[in-house]
């Protein structure tokens, strides 16, 4: 068990910086998810920690020890791959034994550790099966058992659930989280799936173009995005361009919208107002209170109804409402008013 510390860790491929000098500390037993679009540097970061990519700058410390220059086989880490990466010519028990033998675990101890690891992932009795005789979920459990048997200091997950179908993915997500908490191993989890990151991690690192955009617990990332990118990437958000006129936000098209006071020093430069569609109240009719607008589109999304409202200024606002009764449905072309709690509308530089 160990802490992990990345110090201005960077990777340059040719002329492009895949990862730009990032700093991060991961606490004992913590599960940290790296979330971002493809090409954001999350996988490169993980591969540097694993030792498959040599950093161009910075260092990696595990439990306070600098391991930046150690080859992958001398880092005590267990990695779980998107493709499972089981050895197809070995059965389940041989797959789990491989690492134990490579690390010279005493012969007498190996059988017991295999049994224990397979029990942990719920695959007792599958010892003699070959990978191709197992389902995707079972294969990923074997991959998990294979690394858990080694009692690594660090667990590294590289999009481990992306090859599974949707239902199984949700189930495995919880299994991995439960297991990780049970064994208490510090873990990094790379994913492009925000829901996955939200459910599995203690903290999320949102990455974009090789930089860390924001680090924080899932709720904070969602409710209090610090940058336009995070607001836009995580969940759905209305992002309205404009500027601050004193204390009031004025959109580029001229709408004056309520918002929380900025938590950065206003410079007069353009800002963005960000508000989640489910935080917006929508009222029928052109009356008092709220900003008037017109329903341009109504879409039913399962239990939600999504409205696109065009304000008098021409700005469009996305609103989501629980679909409780057809009587509440708003028709396209109907005049409405939208309003929100000022604290839910945040200004981003």
């Amino acid at each position, binding site marked *: 068990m160990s802490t992990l510390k990345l110090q201005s860790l960077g990777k340059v491929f040719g002329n492009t910086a895949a990862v730009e000098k990032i700093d991060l500390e991961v606490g004992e037993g913590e599960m940290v998810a790296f979330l971002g679009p493809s090409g954001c540097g999350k996988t490169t970061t993980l591969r540097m920690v*694993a*030792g*498959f990519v040599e950093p161009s700058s910075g260092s990696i410390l595990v439990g306070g020890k600098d391991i930046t220059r150690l*080859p*992958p*086989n*001398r*880092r005590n*880490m*267990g*990695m779980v*791959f*998107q*493709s499972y*990466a*089981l*050895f*197809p*010519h070995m059965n389940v028990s041989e797959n789990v034994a*491989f*690492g134990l033998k*490579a*690390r010279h675990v005493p012969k007498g101890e190996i059988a017991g550790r295999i049994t224990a690891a397979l029990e942990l992932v719920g695959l007792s009795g599958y010892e003699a099966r*070959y990978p*191709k005789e197992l389902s995707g979920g079972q294969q990923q459990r074997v*991959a998990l058992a*294979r*690394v858990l048997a*080694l009692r690594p200091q660090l667990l*590294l997950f590289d999009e481990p659930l992306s090859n599974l179908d949707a239902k199984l993915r949700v189930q495995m997500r919880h299994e991995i989280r439960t297991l990780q908490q049970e064994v208490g191993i510090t873990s990094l989890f790379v994913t492009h799936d925000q829901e996955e990151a939200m459910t599995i991690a203690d903290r999320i690192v949102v990455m974009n173009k090789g930089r860390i955009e924001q680090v924080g617990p899932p709720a904070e990332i969602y409710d209090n995005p610090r940058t336009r990118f995070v607001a836009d990437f995580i969940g759905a958000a209305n992002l309205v361009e404009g500027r601050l006129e004193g204390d009031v936000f004025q959109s580029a098209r001229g709408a004056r919208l309520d918002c929380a006071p900025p938590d950065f020093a206003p410079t007069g430069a353009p800002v963005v107002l960000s508000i989640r569609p489910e935080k917006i109240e929508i009222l029928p009719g052109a009356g008092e209170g709220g900003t008037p607008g017109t329903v341009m589109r109504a879409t039913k999304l399962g239990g939600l109804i999504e409205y696109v409202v065009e304000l008098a200024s021409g700005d469009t606002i996305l609103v989501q409402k629980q679909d409780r009764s057809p009587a509440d449905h708003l028709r396209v072309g109907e005049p409405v008013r939208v309003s929100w709690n000022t604290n839910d509308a945040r200004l981003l530089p």
Partner: protein
Amino acid sequence: MILFLVNAIIVLFLAAPILVVMATAFTTTGYPVFPPEGFTLKWFARVFETGEFTDAAQLSALLAICATAIACTLGTLTALGLSRWKGRGQSALSAFVLSPILFPTIVLGLALLVFYSRIGLQGSFLGLVIGHSIITTPFVVRLVMASLSEFDPAVEEAARNLGAGWWRTFFQVTLPLIRPGVLAGGVFAFILSFDELVVTLFLAAPGMSTLPMRIFTFVQYSSEPTISAIATMLIVVWALIGVPLYARFLSIRHK
């Protein structure tokens, strides 16, 4: 129906010459005839009477074994290198590596002869081994690259991550997974080398004779069915050893 007929004709064309040669090995006449007249095994005995064929077969086998070993080692390593190197010129380099397949062997033979006389390798066994390795290695490269195309590179990373060094990763993970390609390449290399005539004619010293050379010179001066007997034995040996090997390791994918 038409398909069946076409297939039957193709099989007939492939099999007929082989069957005819085998049949002529048993004729009692002093030259191959078909259908054979009478039945005798004396042509088989004749093969072993003098050392000329057995010595040549031994030399050919030794040569083929050496060339196969070199081709498998070099070919496998080359294929691994080519499949991993994603830099510029990768396709040009693999085309270059595979080019001996397309290169006329007669030109290669001449080129090697000239080159060997400069460096003093002409007429040596080593020179023959090198020549045969040049011819056979590209086939191993090609077949190993084919088996690498369905190889998940993450598997090697997993091995490294689990604590295996380079050697353990190669011998316990990489090699077993590309084994069908290496074995197919090896079988190919062995057959090509055992069968090789053109380059060998250029490079062999006087008095040094591989089996194909021996057969080639023999038919120039003699029409004895001894030659049919040798052909028959080669066919039988190949059918007994080669075909089961082929079926076991190449056509059926292991586990």
